[in-house]
């Protein structure tokens, strides 16, 4: 099994926790969500990001800051992002199905969408990186030793540079769900990891895209670390038959909104 604690035996809390049942883990998640909903009903602000202190995800227990984040105004370098371009990424890197000599196994799919900032401006010419398990739920990683087959024709890594309208598109294979050791019989919903840059370094983010209707959503402490249902829904791609292509690949649409830009936009940039 992909062992969250493989060769890090010092993470005592998480290895012990593998004995917990899904039922007790789910009860923990539900209790946190209930108190969140009660707080919102009593006037508390809605949450838009995952909680970093979310004990049902056992590995988070010793790895989240316990002090409040320090509010800061971004300055100079933080108001800019590193620049990437065609020099960095070849356009074929967005097709994860052509990286080997043969066709990978599984459901061929496209995922297409746009990267926007909080004001709805497209983030153009920026780097998008993805990585994922294969159709059997296996990663090409030494720590993933669960007995599902490696596909010699699928690595599961892709990159692209967004277009002028902030658009990206990857051709890949639909990833499978996979077991992990957060608790007994723990399974992650199928997902694709996304790494994103904006116009400001403060917008840098890594997240996971999920698939509609996954029966594992309610059981997964990583997905459920986002306590607000509306916020959680933002990580689920939409099946889009207009992206699906005849006798070739199914299609999904997923737009990504980064946090607001704090930089003053100059006319020439806005006009692009």
């Amino acid at each position, binding site marked *: 099994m*992909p062992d969250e604690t493989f060769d890090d035996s*010092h*993470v005592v809390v998480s290895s012990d926790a593998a004995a917990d049942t899904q039922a007790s883990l789910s009860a923990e998640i539900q209790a946190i969500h209930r108190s969140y909903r009660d707080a919102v009903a009593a006037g508390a602000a809605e949450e*838009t*990001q*995952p909680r*970093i202190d*979310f004990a049902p*995800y056992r590995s*988070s*227990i*010793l*790895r*989240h*800051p*316990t002090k409040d*984040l*320090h*509010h*800061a105004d*971004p*300055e*100079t*370098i*933080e*108001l*800019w992002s*590193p*620049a990437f371009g*065609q020099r*960095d*990424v070849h356009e074929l890197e967005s097709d994860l199905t052509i990286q080997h000599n043969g066709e990978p196994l599984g459901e061929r799919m496209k995922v297409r969408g746009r990267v926007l900032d*909080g*004001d709805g401006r497209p983030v153009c010419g920026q780097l998008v990186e*993805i990585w994922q398990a294969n159709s059997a739920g296996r*990663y*090409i990683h030494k720590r*993933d030793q669960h007995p599902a087959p490696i596909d010699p024709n699928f*690595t599961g890594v892709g*990159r692209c540079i967004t277009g002028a309208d902030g658009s990206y598109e990857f051709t890949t294979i639909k990833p499978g769900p996979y077991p992990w050791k957060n608790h007994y019989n723990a399974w992650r919903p199928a997902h694709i*990891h996304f790494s994103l840059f904006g116009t400001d*370094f*403060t917008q*840098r*983010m*890594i997240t996971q895209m999920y698939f509609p209707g996954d029966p594992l959503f309610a059981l997964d402490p*990583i*997905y459920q*670390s986002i306590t607000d249902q*509306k916020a959680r829904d*933002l*990580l689920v791609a939409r099946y889009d038959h207009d992206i699906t292509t005849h006798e070739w690949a199914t299609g999904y649409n997923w737009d990504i*909104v*980064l*946090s*607001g*830009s*704090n*930089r*003053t936009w100059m006319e020439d940039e806005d006009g692009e």
Partner: protein
Amino acid sequence: MIEPSDTEQTPATTKLPATPGQTIGPFFEYALPYAKDGELVSQARPGALRLHGTVYDGQGDPIPDALLEIWQADEDGTIVQGTGSLRRDGYTFTGWGRESVDNVGCYAFTTVNPGGTAPGSAPFIAVVVFTRGLLNKLHTRIYLPEDTEALAKDPVLAALPEDRRNTLIATREANGDLRWDVRLQGDRETVFLSFPGA
């Protein structure tokens, strides 16, 4: 190249809800690192130095599966907007680098001292931290230790108690290298930053 003076701060007016982050997970190692990812400059370049340290969890144990990214101005304080970070040619300084820690939680970048980006400002390197077990990215800063007058005037540092502000200031080693550790929890927990609109 962009002159830092072109930038001004304005309050963010976010209209669309931001997509939530998620943990980087345990399996990024075959996907995100690339050749020379942590070499912002060649080791042979005059002024090249090692920026290194260890990432620790709440029990003081090193974390073996974290990823750090740094983003900085060049030695003159100029913010570079050149491409080529993913294809290091050994000559082009892009100001951005990525390093995953080793089995004992250590990272090491090869870079140069950033210059101050405004007159009298304290030079710092912007950092983002990802690791399995961490459900969202964390932002922080690495300040150079030398200009104590500028450090004292820095708005972020000035707002912090003495013991906490030191977590953001690197230690200069005898050979010119910089040492800076990340502590996700504990007595010496690193100061992490949140920004408007986030």
